[in-house]
């Protein structure tokens, strides 16, 4: 009896082990987004055992107590508050043709941020929220907004605000291999060393998270996209995720891609998938 129980237990553990150690894959035949997500969570559980997975939506403040203290003080009067209000006003201001943003989005644009970015099968590309904000404008005869800051970040901030606490739910549809290719492209970008400094995103935000880089401490990769757009103290204003991407890319001493390039949209797709199950908590404030 004991032997049988032992064998069954062993088999169960083996199965669990196989599931846990599923290869996350490095090409289109083997890449497995769910295995990537689980492996990333396991990495951070081991790296920072005291931090709760759900708390990673707060970035570096999940793992560095002194930074968290300062951030919590800052959040008492959130610096993005006026931007949310202005974003709401802009969102509800009709275009010249009488229509508005609410006409362009599902559910009138309310409580949808956590589903972005998504794979658009008809267009064969990753669509981001900011991209659709500008498409909405252009389809209604308005000029597109600048991608990185200003009104687009305010409208995006308001829309993110209406999605607060909703679980991130990024899909990589199995019936379109191009979606998986976009995911893989984003994954590859994240882990690829580039630029004169020979740095990958992962060098700072995976291996280097909570390790001092000159005067700063890079936040962890897990939860990195949940709270955008962000009011960054360094900027003294609101900015979009792609503004930060461009800055990071430049910081590696690469000639950076432009906001909303296919490369950056695929990167956002990969990163956002990694956050599935965590809650959307944008807009945020950061150092």
């Amino acid at each position, binding site marked *: 009896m004991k032997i049988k129980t032992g064998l069954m237990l062993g088999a169960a553990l083996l199965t669990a082990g196989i599931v846990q150690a599923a290869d996350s894959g490095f090409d289109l035949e083997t890449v497995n987004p769910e295995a990537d997500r689980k*492996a990333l969570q396991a990495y951070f559980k081991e790296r920072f055992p005291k931090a709760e997975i759900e708390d990673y939506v707060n970035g570096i403040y999940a793992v560095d107590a002194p930074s968290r203290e300062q951030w919590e003080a800052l959040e008492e009067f959130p610096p993005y508050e006026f931007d949310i209000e202005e974003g709401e006003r802009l969102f509800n201001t009709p275009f010249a043709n009488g229509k508005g943003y609410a006409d362009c989005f599902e559910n009138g644009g309310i409580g949808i941020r956590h589903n972005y970015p998504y794979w658009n099968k008809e267009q064969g590309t990753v669509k981001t929220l900011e991209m659709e904000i500008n498409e909405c404008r252009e389809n209604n005869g308005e000029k597109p907004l600048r991608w990185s800051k200003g009104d687009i970040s305010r409208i995006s901030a308001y829309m993110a605000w209406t999605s607060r606490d909703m679980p991130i739910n990024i899909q990589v549809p199995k019936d379109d291999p191009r979606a998986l290719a976009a995911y893989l492209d984003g994954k590859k970008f994240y882990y690829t060393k580039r630029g004169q400094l020979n740095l*990958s995103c992962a060098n700072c935000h995976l291996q280097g998270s909570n390790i001092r880089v000159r005067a700063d401490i890079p936040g962890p990769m897990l939860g990195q996209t949940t709270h955008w757009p962000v009011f960054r103290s360094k900027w003294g204003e609101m900015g979009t995720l792609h503004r930060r991407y461009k800055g990071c890319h430049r910081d590696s001493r690469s000639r950076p891609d432009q906001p909303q390039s296919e490369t950056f949209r695929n990167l956002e797709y990969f990163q956002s998938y990694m956050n599935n199950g965590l809650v959307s908590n944008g807009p945020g404030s950061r150092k």
Partner: protein
Amino acid sequence: MIRKTIFAALALSLSATVVAAPDSYQDAFELNRAMYGKGHTFVWQGKEYSTDHPEEIEAAVEANAANAAALIASAKAKNAEVAKLNFEWKLTRDIIKKAEAAAAKGEFRKALNLAAQAKYHARMGIEQYHYAQANWHLSVPE
């Protein structure tokens, strides 16, 4: 006994030096370049080599308008190659502009050196791209 220990330690340190010796030309080049900079020579597997980058060797020509223009054009072409791979470095275009400005002012030696630097950046970016294709997966958590 003490003498034996000293000999053993010496023998160990010597063999460690042998083990640490670069086993490829590239490693030997990079080691010597890092230690001595450009314009030096080193011996690897019985042969003498220079610590100069190929682009620095290219720049070691007569400083005149034609040579400067040729190296600037060559640097631009190499940078276009790396840009196509999306691995262009941040400073390269600026260095090329500075090389052009120097050439326009008749400072051909400066122009040649800057063009060599830009071409080197571009070549390194291409090497980085090929390295990445084979190794990007190494830091992915499993």
